[in-house]
């Protein structure tokens, strides 16, 4: 009966990865609302007062109202592998996740530093490769990485920006303990949930927002448009024409693609709407072909150009890489950015941040053991039952071992796999993830959360929307926040000073 507790709001799509790395083994995890049984942490003080004043039935009624509203609006994500691609809804919990202004300032400084370093790293890797010459990261990590694109060598994207949009996954374990779990530098998704969640809250509880001052998120589409326009290629005279490239209505994130195009006032195109005309990318309109300057693509590198990458791709544009290299189109994010966000590179991020910014990394990495190194391998094999082991290039939780949840047999089978190809794996300790309450029948109950803030990069600077997407594991004690595995979302508030 637990599913009735949550508002089944539909959401754009499952965000890519499953955070199995976080296993709560201790009961004394950090709760973001409460200290002990009675005390409320300051960011939640006003909210809690309001919540305690609510007549119990009202919130339940609000849930139902909103459910009907969301079903009609059709904010859905598609599930793959079904004959008739099923559209599903993702649960939305009414209790916001609240971050104090001071906490956010520190967090956003850390994120900005990291994103700056990632862009510098990508520019270096695809040009002089100073970091390899300096011996700070192994050459094989780049040379043998499938996400590294030789076609990008010696090329500078328009405006010098590689990762126009980044979603940095963050987890918290204590008052001042934030860790970066993953840097999503390819085509991070989920931002439409962030915006729709806030809209829902504004519609349902307008009085809350007059009582508590929350930093707005609604500028995101405008900022995204401005940020993309600022990266237009030199060949563009006048107002840049922006289009969003989607794989189509059956893609799991189609709702988000149409939402962002709509909010930005940009055309939503598919590969078959585009072709190369006079050395530019152009879209087929009712009045003939019209030039595009900036393409916000939600199609993976591999499918972008059948002439350069996967020849069977129907999702991309034949010849777009030539147009790109000639400087006549901006592709956001740039092809080849995946080399900066895979799990093997992750373990070097503190070094990368230091190498390019000259500063210590503000945000911590989760401790990571590279099994390819003999000492680490020995440690990992000795402590397998306490660790999470991931495939370096895997995603979505496939090929992964969650030590504390594994049987003896699973552990020994995995140890064999690990010993056979140690270079293919990394291992991380389990963390005690913070909790935020969700609404259940009897009131509030703590559940584990993570956070994905959205970062926009342009030549004019880095813009981070205050807040982001909070994913929450709806089952008691669970640490799996992924939407395809029973996770939900919350509105995320960053308070005004």
């Amino acid at each position: 009966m637990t599913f009735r507790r949550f508002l089944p709001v539909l959401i754009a799509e499952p965000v890519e990865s499953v955070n199995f790395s976080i296993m709560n083994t201790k009961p004394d995890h950090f709760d973001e609302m409460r200290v002990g049984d009675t005390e409320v942490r300051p960011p939640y003080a006003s909210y809690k007062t309001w919540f305690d004043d609510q007549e119990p039935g009202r919130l339940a009624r609000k849930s139902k109202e909103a459910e009907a509203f969301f079903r009609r609006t059709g904010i859905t994500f598609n599930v793959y592998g079904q004959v008739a691609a099923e559209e599903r809804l993702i649960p939305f919990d009414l209790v916001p996740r609240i971050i104090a202004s001071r906490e956010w300032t520190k967090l956003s400084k850390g994120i900005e530093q990291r994103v700056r370093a990632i862009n510098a790293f990508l520019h270096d890797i695809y040009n002089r490769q100073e970091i390899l010459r300096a011996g700070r990261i192994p050459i094989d990590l780049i040379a043998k990485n499938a996400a590294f694109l030789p076609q990008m060598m010696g090329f500078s994207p328009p405006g010098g920006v590689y990762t126009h949009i980044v979603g940095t996954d963050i987890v918290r374990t204590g008052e001042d303990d934030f860790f970066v779990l993953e840097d999503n530098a390819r085509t991070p998704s989920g931002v439409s949930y962030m915006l729709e969640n806030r809209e829902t809250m504004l519609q349902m509880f307008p009085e809350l927002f007059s009582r508590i001052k929350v930093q707005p998120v609604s500028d995101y589409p405008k900022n995204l448009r401005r940020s993309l326009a600022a990266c237009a290629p030199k060949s563009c005279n006048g107002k840049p024409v922006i289009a969003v490239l989607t794989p189509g209505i059956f893609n799991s994130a189609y709702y988000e693609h149409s939402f962002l195009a709509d909010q930005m006032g940009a055309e939503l195109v598919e590969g078959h709407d585009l072709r190369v005309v006079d050395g530019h990318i152009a879209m087929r309109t009712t009045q003939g072909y019209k030039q595009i300057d900036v393409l916000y693509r939600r199609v993976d590198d591999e499918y972008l150009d059948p002439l350069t990458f996967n020849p069977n791709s129907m999702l991309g544009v034949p010849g777009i890489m030539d147009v790109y290299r000639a400087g006549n189109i901006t592709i956001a994010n740039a092809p080849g950015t995946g080399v900066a966000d895979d799990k093997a590179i992750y373990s070097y991020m503190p070094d990368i941040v230091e190498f390019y910014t000259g500063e210590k990394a503000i945000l911590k990495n989760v401790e990571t053991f590279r099994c390819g190194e003999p000492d680490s391998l020995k440690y990992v094999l000795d402590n397998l039952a306490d660790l999470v082991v991931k495939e370096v290039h895997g995603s979505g939780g496939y090929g992964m071992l969650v030590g504390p949840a594994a049987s003896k047999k699973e552990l020994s089978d995995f140890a064999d796999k690990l010993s056979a190809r140690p270079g293919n794996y990394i291992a991380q300790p389990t963390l005690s993830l913070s909790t935020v309450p969700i609404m259940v029948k009897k009131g509030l109950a703590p559940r584990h959360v993570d956070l994905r803030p959205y970062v926009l990069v342009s030549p004019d600077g880095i813009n981070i929307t205050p807040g982001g997407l909070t994913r929450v594991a709806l089952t008691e004690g669970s640490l799996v926040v992924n939407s395809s595995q029973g996770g939900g979302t919350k509105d995320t508030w960053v308070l005004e000073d």
Partner: protein
Amino acid sequence: MLGKTAGGLYWMFRFLERAENTARLVEAGFRIALTRSQDSSTEWESVVTTAGVCDPFRKKHEGFTASDVIDFLLRDKDNASSVYSVTKSARDNARLVRTALTAEVWTAVNDNWMTIQELLKKPIKETDLPRVLDVIRQQSALVRGALHGTMLRNDIYDFARIGTFIERADNTARIIDVKYYTLLPSNSFVGSSLDNVQWETILRSVSAHRAFRWLDEEEMTASSVARFLILDRRLPRSLVFSMATTLENLNYLVDEYGTRHACHDHAEQMLKNLRERDITSIFDEGLHEFITGFINDNNALGLLIERDYKFYG
């Protein structure tokens, strides 16, 4: 506007119009079955023929029973023109062109799909049929209302209207085509109850039985019914009305884009063929030939619009 978007709008509104027309056809068939004592399978057969799905129907069913026909036309997922299928196709196209629609239109189409899905979940009992058909018609009225009330009068609206009226003209023409023999003056016995029932059915399938009595001072005869459906400018489902509206919206596109295409000449010629005729000359030419010619011209117009406005690659 993207050519694909124009195509998505055009088809979205063709499918919505088809859902409504199919519901009307079923209603007319149901009524004749209720009011006549003898075997009604011929009536149901002509309903299926008018809907243009005779071949797929025969593959699935032996005879033309009321329950099989109703199920096939309303609920069958194997029938691409069933109300269920076209409502889904309309919504799929709406998703494709979502950025071109106002929130109200999108919500209405999405609502329409959710309501129809629920409505047609189980086989329809005869006692429920009138209510079910009512809901289908109401739902399409809601979508149309949202379109008229909230959309800018620009190319987006024009393609929506063109799709609606090309589909509507096709539907009215097919109704006449299937029943043309009952409209031939030579075959009719004025005032015979058989013909009255047939004409009434035809009028009902375009929701015009009441309008005919109000507007037409003539006796109900074969030629007055035919004239009404083909040439009456006041009837929103007549061929001439549908053609005039299609051309009007095509001409708005000329104003907006500043370019004229082959489809404009073709539509102008089609409208001229209707406006310069009277019903006697149509009967002299042969009603069947005239209607067949119209259906072919209308299909050709659809293809020209597709090409001229670059719906596909």
